[in-house]
C-alpha cells in the first residue's frame, strides 16, 4: 500500500496530464476504497461495479456528497484517522465529515500546494495573508488547514481594523486569501477608510461564495471592490472552488468563470435525472474524481450544476434545497453575532 501512496505523490508532483497514469491510479484507489469502506461497497454492488469489472475511471460509481454527512467514510478505522475536516457550521447531522489518516493528510498537503502554485507563476515566493481562523483555532476547517499548509504568514479573524492597518503599511506584494464573505465583511466594516493600494504584484484569492444565507453581492461587484478598495485589478484576482469533502481545488482567474483543476482530478457532467453522462454541451451535476481523496472516496457526485468549457467547467449554481455549506458560513455566524443588538 505504501507504494500506492508514493505513486500518487509522484503523480501529483509531476503535475502532467497523463490519462493512462491517472486511470491506473484511479482504479487502484477505487479498489482500496471498495474493499475497505462498506457503505461505498454496497452502493458499488448495486451498480454492478467492482474492482473485477471496472476498467476505466469513468465507471467508478460517484457517491453523493451527502454521503459524507450520513456515513463515516474512511478506509482506516476512525481512531487512526486523526484528522477530520467538517463542512462549515456546527457539527451535527447536517455536517460532512472528511476523515484523513496521516497518509491522506500527506497527499492532501501535496495536492493543495502543487495545485495552488500551478495556478500561476505569479504565486511563487509571495507571502500569504489569510482572512480566516488559524488552523490551531479551527482544527476541523480544511480551508484553515490549507492556508496553514501553504505557510500563510498571517491570519486575521474578526479584526478588520488590524488587517486594514497592516495592509496600509505593506511595501511588498502579498497574496491575500479569504472567503468572499470575509472580504465583504472587511469592506463593510471599513467604509470610512481611504482606499488602499496594495503593492504592485499583489494577488487576491477568494473562495466560498455567499451561499444565500445573508448579504450577497455579485462577483463583478466584489472584484470591483478589490480594485477600488485594495487596488488589485481583476486579472490579479482568483477564485478558488473547493469543498471539505474533496482534497483538491479548482481555480478561475478574474471574471472568467471557467474553473480549472489539477492533472490528478477529472470531472464528469452527469444528467441529474438519468444519472448518466450528459452530452458534452449540456449542463448537469458535477462529479469529481480526485486522486488526492485517498482515505475517503475518489468519486464524488456534487450538488453543483455546471457545463464544460475549454478544458475546465463553468459553475452554474447549486441545486436548490441542497444544504447551504461552505466556508463563508463561519464568517456569517460571526457577523450576525456582531450586528445582533445586545
Amino acid at each position, binding site marked *: 500500500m505504501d507504494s500506492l501512496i508514493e505513486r500518487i505523490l509522484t503523480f501529483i508532483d509531476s503535475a502532467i496530464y497523463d490519462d493512462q497514469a491517472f486511470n491506473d491510479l484511479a482504479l487502484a484507489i477505487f479498489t482500496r476504497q471498495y474493499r475497505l469502506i462498506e457503505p461505498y461497497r454496497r452502493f458499488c454492488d448495486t451498480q454492478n461495479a467492482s474492482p473485477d469489472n471496472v476498467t476505466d475511471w469513468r465507471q467508478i460509481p460517484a457517491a453523493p456528497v451527502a454521503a459524507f454527512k450520513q456515513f463515516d467514510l474512511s478506509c482506516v478505522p476512525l481512531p487512526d484517522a486523526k484528522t477530520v475536516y467538517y463542512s462549515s457550521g456546527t457539527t451535527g447531522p447536517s455536517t460532512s465529515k472528511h476523515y484523513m489518516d496521516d497518509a491522506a493528510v500527506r497527499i492532501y498537503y501535496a495536492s493543495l500546494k502543487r495545485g495552488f502554485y500551478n495556478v500561476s507563476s505569479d504565486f511563487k515566493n509571495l507571502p500569504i495573508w489569510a482572512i480566516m481562523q488559524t488552523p490551531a483555532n479551527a482544527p476541523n476547517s480544511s480551508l484553515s488547514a490549507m492556508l496553514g499548509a501553504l505557510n500563510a504568514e498571517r491570519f486575521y479573524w474578526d479584526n478588520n481594523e488590524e488587517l486594514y492597518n497592516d495592509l496600509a503599511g505593506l511595501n511588498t506584494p502579498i497574496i491575500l486569501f479569504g472567503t468572499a464573505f470575509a472580504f465583504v465583511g472587511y469592506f463593510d466594516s471599513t467604509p470610512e477608510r481611504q482606499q488602499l493600494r496594495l503593492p504592485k504584484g499583489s494577488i487576491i484569492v477568494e473562495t466560498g461564495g455567499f451561499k444565500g444565507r445573508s448579504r450577497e453581492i455579485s462577483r463583478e461587484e466584489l472584484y470591483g471592490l478589490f480594485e477600488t478598495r485594495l487596488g488589485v485589478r481583476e486579472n490579479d484576482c482568483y477564485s478558488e472552488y473547493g469543498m471539505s469533502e474533496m482534497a483538491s481545488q479548482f481555480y478561475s482567474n478574474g471574471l472568467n468563470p471557467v474553473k480549472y483543476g489539477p492533472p490528478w482530478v477529472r470531472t464528469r457532467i452527469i444528467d441529474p435525472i438519468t444519472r448518466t453522462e450528459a452530452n458534452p454541451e449540456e449542463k448537469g451535476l458535477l462529479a469529481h474524481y480526485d486522486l488526492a481523496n485517498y482515505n475517503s472516496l475518489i468519486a464524488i457526485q456534487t450538488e453543483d450544476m455546471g457545463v464544460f468549457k475549454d478544458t475546465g467547467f463553468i459553475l452554474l449554481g447549486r441545486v*436548490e434545497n441542497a444544504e447551504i455549506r461552505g466556508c463563508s458560513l463561519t464568517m456569517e455566524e460571526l457577523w450576525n453575532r456582531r450586528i445582533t443588538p445586545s
Partner: protein
Amino acid sequence: MEPAYNSILKSIEALRINHHDILLKTSREQIIDYIVRFADEWRNAQSPWRMQAKTIESPFDYKEVFYTLDGLLESLTRDSLKELIAQEITDNCAGYPVIGHVIAGNTPLIAWTSVLRALLVKSASFVKLPSGSASAWGKLFGISWLSIIPELAGCVVMDQWAGGTANQDKQLCDSCDLLLAYGSDDTIKSLKSLRNDRSFIGYGHRVSLSVILPGADIMQCIDGLARDICMYDQSGCLSPHMVYVIGDDDRLSCCISALSKAMDAYLAGNTTNRDIDTAVRINNSRILSTMEGSVVFGNDDLDWTIIQRTCPDFIFSPTHRVVSVASIKTAEEIFSLLLPVKDVLQGCSIGGAYNENDYFVTELKNMGISYICKTGKLQAPPMSWPEDNKPILSSLLKNAI
C-alpha cells in the same frame, strides 16, 4: 397580478362590514343549509362546477383530487355539521369577525375546509391562495361559492400573491382578527412573527404512516395504500412516510412486490417529469439508502421509490413518493418507534380489520395521531377531521386562543 397594497385592507374592511350585516344576522341553521346546498351542487356529477374542475390539470388534476373532494363532500351533511357544532360550540358563541387564511400549495383543498369551518362560526374569510397553478382549486371554490351561495358571497374573498411578499403579508397580518396559516415551519414562524402576539393558529409540517395488520389481505388493501402514498406526490401532511408491515420478512417482501405494482398502476404510465432539484433528492435518497444497507425499488423515471429498511426506525421521506417499508413483529412495537416523531404525527391508515376502540387504535390516538382510517382513505378526510388535533370550530372563537 399582485394585489395593490391597499386593496387587502379594503377587502378586509368590506368583509368586516359583511360579517356584521350578513353573517351575524344569519342563523347557524341557515349557514348549515347554505353549506349543504353548496355540497349538493358539487356532488351532482353533471354540475358545471364538476365539469370545470375536470379541466384543471396541474399540479392537481381532477382525476386525483376528486377523491379528496368526494370525501369532504360526503361529510358535508346536515346531520354531521349539526353534530360537529354541538360537540364544539354553543349557539351564542362568536367567531372572529374576519379570519385570514394563508393556504399552502402542497394539497389542493385546504382553502375549502378552512373557509367552510370559518363560516360555521360565522366568520368572514380573506384567503391568500398559493401562487401559480396550485391555486386553481382554491379559486374554483371561491367562484363556485359566489355563484351557488350569493347570499353569503360578500363574506369570502380569495386573493393571491407570492408568499413572502413583505408588504402584502404584513397587511394581511395587521388587518385580520385571526390568522390561520398552513405551510412549512418556516412560513408559520415568519407569519407568526408578523402577527406579533395577535391571534394566530399555525398548521405546520406533519407526517403520516400506514400499518398493515397481521390478518390483512395484502391484495385487498394494497391499491388503497398506493393511493395514500402517491396522491399529491406524497407532499401532504396525510401522506405516509413509513409503512409498517406486521409480520415476517416473507410478508414484507410480498407487500413490497404488490405495492410496486400498485404504484405503477396508480400512475398508469404517466411519468411525473421530475425537475432537477427533485431528481437529485430522490436519487440521493435511493443511493444513501443503498449505502446504509436498505434495498431500494423504483422505476427509472423516478416516479416512485420503495425503500425496504433493515431497521424499523421511523424515517422522514424526502416526499416525491419515496416511502420506507419495514417489518415489525407486533403492533405494539410501533409505539416506541413513533415516540421520536410523536410531535409531528398526523394520520395513520390501517390495512386490515380494526375497531375504533381497539387498544392499538386508541394508543395511536394517544400518541397524537389526529386521523385514523382504512388504507385508501388517508387523503379523503372528512370536515370533522381535527387537523393537528386542534379543535375544529372552538379554536376559531374569540377568547379561544
